[in-house]
């Protein structure tokens, strides 16, 4: 065990050398690195948001809203079928997850027609095959209609995928440095924004669904503050963006929607110098818009964003070119953001911000500095203590500890794992715990010598005896690190990573590098000294 073949020695040294090569870039600046020869790796440790500064946002797609909207669409279709077949119904209502109404009779063919309705309804949205995606239940006279679980799942999944894409587009439009946007679980999105410590603007951008519609203003009646809910059939009351007290009555029918936009750009009105957003419709949108404006010259139409009227200009002449502009008393930043939102498209459902963690760049820098300071002082303390307790062997363990730290850094850089503040704590904890494997071995060797073994045999037996203890002891810590890795997210996860890497490197160095050093030392002793004790 104490004799190493040349191949073994070279492979141990090679592994250590490779780790060192990958650790080295962390001690130089980016500029210095670029001037190095190309065979030296350039990757540095990837710093977590808590160290480099940045913002973490956890969003959830409002899935209740998706189903609610689908049910509202279904509502009018079901009513139409009932009316067409002269079925008397009452108490028709929408809840969050079903439609309910009371009927005297509900023949099977009507039920079939309704369930077929869902097929035609679904085909243009989702591929569900020929199966119905409605569950129709009848209890006495009350009928309830809801979507099947598969349909709900598919609808939510599609909405989340679509939201992810739109969130990505909106953030990309802002030109953020290396954003990371990922889906988490069934309905969540995690956004990591390095270098952004005040995500107010991004939050504002993500907080809007940005559903843009053009609808005609209902001029048949005026908004009556005494009767705030009364709107003619087919019309709705919407608030004004500019004036909180003012309300518009607009026709529910949508002339053109945001999905027909192909471009939107911020700019200034050449006459008033007011910030505006100019937009262009696709061919379908342009012809729809042209037709409606032609028929309604002289009447006002409303530009509506997320159920709020931005402005309601009067149509002076038919707009046939397929382009137009929105002005609504916003400043140039707002115009810019609105253009971004319109270009990126509307979210299928509102996003809710569940969690936000933002760290400013100087707190991150302070944390790195404090972490380095603590690491160096802890390291020196451990090194001196080991030399004090084990003298020469302690010195060997210290060399192994240094190599250990380089290996942790090298592995972090190689795999581009993220180093966080708790991750630095994990490295410092490793400094304290990494010597354990060597301590276990040295204690064994000491015992062997005490019981009269020769140095070489003592080293050999010490290693043999300590092996299973070292494995058992490190596997328990590794189990804890693995569980932490799977349960935690963000900075705390970084701790489990460095802890686990530290366990591997410390066991590795104890069984290869220190062992090599000790065997060289033991063999170098003069035969007369071979029986000597370690602590004299």
């Amino acid at each position, binding site marked *: 065990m104490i004799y190493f073949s040349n191949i073994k020695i070279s492979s141990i040294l090679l592994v250590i050398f490779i780790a060192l090569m990958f650790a080295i870039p962390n001690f130089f600046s980016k500029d210095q690195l670029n001037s190095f020869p190309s065979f030296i790796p350039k990757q540095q440790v990837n710093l977590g948001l808590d160290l480099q500064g940045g913002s973490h946002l956890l969003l959830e797609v409002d899935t209740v809203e998706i189903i609610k909207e689908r049910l509202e669409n279904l509502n009018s279709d079901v009513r139409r079928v009932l009316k067409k077949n002269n079925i008397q119904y009452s108490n028709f209502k929408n809840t969050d997850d079903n439609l309910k109404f009371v009927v005297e009779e509900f023949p099977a063919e009507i039920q079939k027609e309704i369930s077929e309705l869902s097929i035609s309804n679904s085909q243009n949205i989702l591929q569900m095959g020929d199966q119905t995606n409605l569950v129709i239940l009848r209890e006495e006279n009350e009928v309830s209609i809801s979507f099947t679980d598969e349909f709900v799942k598919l609808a939510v999944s599609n909405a989340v995928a679509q939201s992810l894409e739109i969130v990505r587009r909106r953030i990309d439009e802002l030109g953020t440095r290396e954003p990371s946007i990922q889906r988490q679980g069934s309905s969540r999105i995690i956004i990591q924004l390095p270098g952004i410590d005040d995500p107010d603007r991004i939050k504002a951008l993500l907080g809007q669904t940005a559903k843009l519609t053009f609808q005609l203003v209902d001029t048949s009646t005026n908004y009556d503050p005494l009767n705030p809910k009364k709107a003619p059939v087919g019309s709705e009351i919407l608030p004004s963006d500019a004036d909180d007290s003012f309300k518009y009555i607009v026709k529910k029918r949508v002339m053109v929607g945001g999905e027909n936009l192909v471009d939107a750009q911020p700019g200034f009105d050449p006459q008033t110098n007011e910030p505006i957003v100019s937009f262009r419709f696709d061919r379908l949108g342009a012809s729809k818009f042209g037709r409606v404006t032609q028929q309604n010259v002289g009447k006002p139409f409303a530009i509506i964003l997320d159920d709020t009227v931005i402005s309601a200009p009067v149509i002076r002449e038919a707009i046939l070119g397929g382009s137009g502009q929105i002005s609504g008393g916003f400043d140039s930043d707002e115009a810019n953001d609105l253009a971004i939102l319109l270009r990126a498209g509307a979210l299928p459902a509102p996003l809710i911000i569940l969690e936000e963690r933002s760290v400013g760049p100087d707190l991150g820098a302070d944390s790195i500095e404090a*972490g380095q300071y603590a690491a160096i002082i802890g390291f020196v303390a451990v090194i001196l203590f080991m030399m004090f307790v084990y003298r020469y062997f302690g010195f060997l363990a210290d060399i192994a500890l240094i190599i250990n730290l380089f290996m942790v850094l090298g592995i972090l850089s190689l795999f581009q794992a993220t180093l966080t503040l708790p991750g630095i704590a994990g490295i410092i904890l490793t400094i304290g715990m990494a010597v354990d494997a060597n301590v276990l071995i040295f204690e064994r060797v000491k015992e062997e010598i005490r019981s009269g073994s020769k140095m070489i045999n003592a080293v050999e037996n010490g290693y043999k005896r300590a092996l299973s203890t070292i494995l058992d002891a490190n596997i328990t*810590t590794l189990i804890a690190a693995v569980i932490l890795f799977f349960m935690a997210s963000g900075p705390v996860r970084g701790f489990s990573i460095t802890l686990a890497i530290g366990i591997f490197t410390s066991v590795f160095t104890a069984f290869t590098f220190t062992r090599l050093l000790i065997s060289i030392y033991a063999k170098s002793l003069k035969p007369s000294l071979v029986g000597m004790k370690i602590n004299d």
Partner: protein
Amino acid sequence: MIDIANTKIDFLKSRIITFIFSSILVVLSFGAFFVSGLNFGIDFKGGTLIEIETENEIEIAGLRDNLNSLSLGDVQVQEFGSKNNLLIRVEQQSGGDQIQQNVVEIVKTSLNSYLSSEVNFRRTEVVGPKVSGELIQSGAIAILAAVFAMLIYIWFRFEWQFSLGAVVALIHDVILTIGVFSITQLEFNLPIIAAILTIVGYSMNDTVVVYDRVRENLRKHRSKNIIDLLNLSINETLSRTIVTSVTTLLALLSLFIFGGEVIKGFTFAMIWGVVVGTYSSIFVAAPLLNYLDVKREWNTTSAVDSTR
């Protein structure tokens, strides 16, 4: 040179006293937990945390009154490391996740108008009710899963008696850590869960080293009285136990003193855990084997043996 080898301390002599001592600590921990509870941070309670830095010293009482008049519920303001650094905590708002988001803006606006000097917002954390509920749950599951995994691992590598003894010591350490956080009312947040998991790993590590020696001695000295055998095993591993605890504590103390305010609580938990974990390996885990009727006839050709 201090030589801690060849000690012959009778650790088990005072086992009744140390058991009573540990039991009192456990009862105290439970008491503190049920009386005052843990001071949950926003990770588990939800709410908003803002760390600010200003050029001039800030009069905390005035700022606290100002922020408490915003009708955001309870607002705590405390010094964080230095007089120019303050930590502001706003309790969770009722009305769901959406409402939480407004708090940051309201507090920022108020701070900018109240404080004459430039305010540097160093850190902003907002945790809504949904996430905080999930974090509590996954934290508790993680600790239970870790303890359970240790139980299985030790059972697999040793015998059920060892497994039981080790897990009792482990639960002892976890309870004492939760106890010290209940008594001191230090903030209990997500990194503390990580610290407890590390304590679970470390405490087990320490116990395993002692148990390994117990098993070895059970084979070596078949006729030795179990109490003498346990004492021998603890003494034989004592210098390793002390050296490793000291190096780990040296590293952690350095982190505690120089590592900055943000991870102080985390480091404190781990220092406490190392002390308690070392104590429990010697005074809880090992003496328990005396009562658990460990097997004396180890099969020398078992699978465990073949690894040596």
